[in-house]
């Protein structure tokens, strides 16, 4: 029987899934097995429309799950809000910020965590689809429509075109020019989601298995059940990883986190004078569409909430009450997933603004939202100093 804390290297036993899926298709097969053996009633997958578009769907069809094999780096979705208030018995793949969002929703009683199997995915960052299209034309000089596949390898972003050619440019170079990963991904420091039930990724796979298998770390009893189930059902094959692989995985994690911290320092330079004017300028174009609130994976007030009910354009305040309430509410809840910036129709860098408030508060209270089940400090009875 598999135990919490154990590590494995595994791959799918289904040939086509193994070929199509990223790193051996283990995650896809594991989800399919969970559905087939009735461990869960449904699975969340991304249904691909094209290389830059996909919609998250909740499905009970095993074939749909198997068809979803393959990774998409330029579809920054977040599954937390999709599951909220639905009371599903579900398994889903989730990158670090999805996991954090789901746990935060769990704390707010919108998701029943005991019934949610979270398959964490190592994540070095995702890209905004519009920026990616632009980048393909400007940097790669290829038409977005010709792209057939993408991959990230050794710090290079590789796009394959339909005629079989590979185009590679280093991510550092892309980010210097303002393309590449989303800003929130650059300063994210959760690279291996150990807050999920089971953490999967290609880091730490060595030898001739490299690129063809997935490294798995079991983080909870639920995760052990999920993996055991898939092995028993004959969907996947696992073996123990070698020591070199474990060390390599830890090293990559360290390097990535270090880079994230560096970006954080670079982006959040303290503003010395007239901070109020800075925030006022940034929020000037807000059209009160409330899209940022709708997508926010930690917000769970619903349609009638403090931020909207106490806000009126007629007030003509120097600063929008809507944003002030959100700044305050997200001070301990913001997980820095970047969804708000992505959806903003007037391109306000909202994540950056929220993080400006969240960074000092979360540091002072030593509270990281979505990493464990600790109650948000705002609702604690006494301040622990």
């Amino acid at each position: 029987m598999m135990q919490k804390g154990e590590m494995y290297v595994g791959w799918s036993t289904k040939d086509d899934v193994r070929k199509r899926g990223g790193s051996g298709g283990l995650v896809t097969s594991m989800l399919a097995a969970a559905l087939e053996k009735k461990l869960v009633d449904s699975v969340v997958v991304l249904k691909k429309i094209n290389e830059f578009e996909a919609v998250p769907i909740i499905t009970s069809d095993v074939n749909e799950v198997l068809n979803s094999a393959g990774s998409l780096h330029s579809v920054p979705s977040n599954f937390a809000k999709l599951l909220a208030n639905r009371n599903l018995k579900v398994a889903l793949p989730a990158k670090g910020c999805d996991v954090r969002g789901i746990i935060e929703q769990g704390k707010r009683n919108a998701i029943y965590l005991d019934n949610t199997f979270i398959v964490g995915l190592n994540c070095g960052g995702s890209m905004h689809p519009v920026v990616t299209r632009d980048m393909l034309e400007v940097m790669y000089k290829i038409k977005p429509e010709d792209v057939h596949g993408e991959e990230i390898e050794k710090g290079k972003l590789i796009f394959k075109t339909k005629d079989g050619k590979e185009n590679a440019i280093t991510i550092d170079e892309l980010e210097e020019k303002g393309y590449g990963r989303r800003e929130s991904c650059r300063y994210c420091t959760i690279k291996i989601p150990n807050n999920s039930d089971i953490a999967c990724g290609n880091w730490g796979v060595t030898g001739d298995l490299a690129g063809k298998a997935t490294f798995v770390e079991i983080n909870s009893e639920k995760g052990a059940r999920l993996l055991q189930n898939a092995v028993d059902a004959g969907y996947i094959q696992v073996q123990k990883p070698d020591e070199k692989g474990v060390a390599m995985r830890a090293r990559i994690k360290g390097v990535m986190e270090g880079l994230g911290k560096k970006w954080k320092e670079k982006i959040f330079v303290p503003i010395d004078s007239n901070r109020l004017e800075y925030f006022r300028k940034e929020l000037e174009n807000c059209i009160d569409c409330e899209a940022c609130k709708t997508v926010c994976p930690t917000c769970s007030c619903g349609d009638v909430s403090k931020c909207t009910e106490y806000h009126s354009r007629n007030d003509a305040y120097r600063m929008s009450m809507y944003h002030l309430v959100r700044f305050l509410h997200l001070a301990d809840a913001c997980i820095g997933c970047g969804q708000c910036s992505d959806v903003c129709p007037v391109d306000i860098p909202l994540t950056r603004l929220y993080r400006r408030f969240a960074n000092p508060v979360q540091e002072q209270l030593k509270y990281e939202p979505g990493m464990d089940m600790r109650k948000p400090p705002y609702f604690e009875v006494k301040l622990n100093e």
Partner: protein
Amino acid sequence: MSAEPTASTAAKTDGWEPKIVAFCCNWCSYGGADSAGMGRFQQPASARIIRVMCSGRIDPLHVFNAFLEGADAVLVTGCHIGDCHYVNGNDKTKIKYKYLENVAHELGIEKERLQLNWISASEGEKFANFIRDVTAQIKKLGPSPLKPEGVA
């Protein structure tokens, strides 16, 4: 929205009196304000007192609303820790204030404009001194940058 905050700062020299919103809890600091009056402790007429049943009732939203409506300073006052009429209401105030303080600071509101103080019902002199000190500090700072247009 477009007017620069500099327009209102000119007024600070000619006898400008700051507007201070003071949230006082029913059991302690409101009593403190009362005894300040009864004990004839002199204090400037700059404070507008809002009585709440407990300082724990003060939502950060109330404070922001006060600023946005034109307050030059907002004071949050309550019973001393351990003396709360509702056992631990002011412990919760302390937590909320921590958030409020951080957000207000990051927003660029000077720390003198938002203050927390514990005042008991017998500390009339402390209340009067507190109001006097804050008024002096705010007079030096000038009108709040969050003050809406057309509000003195």
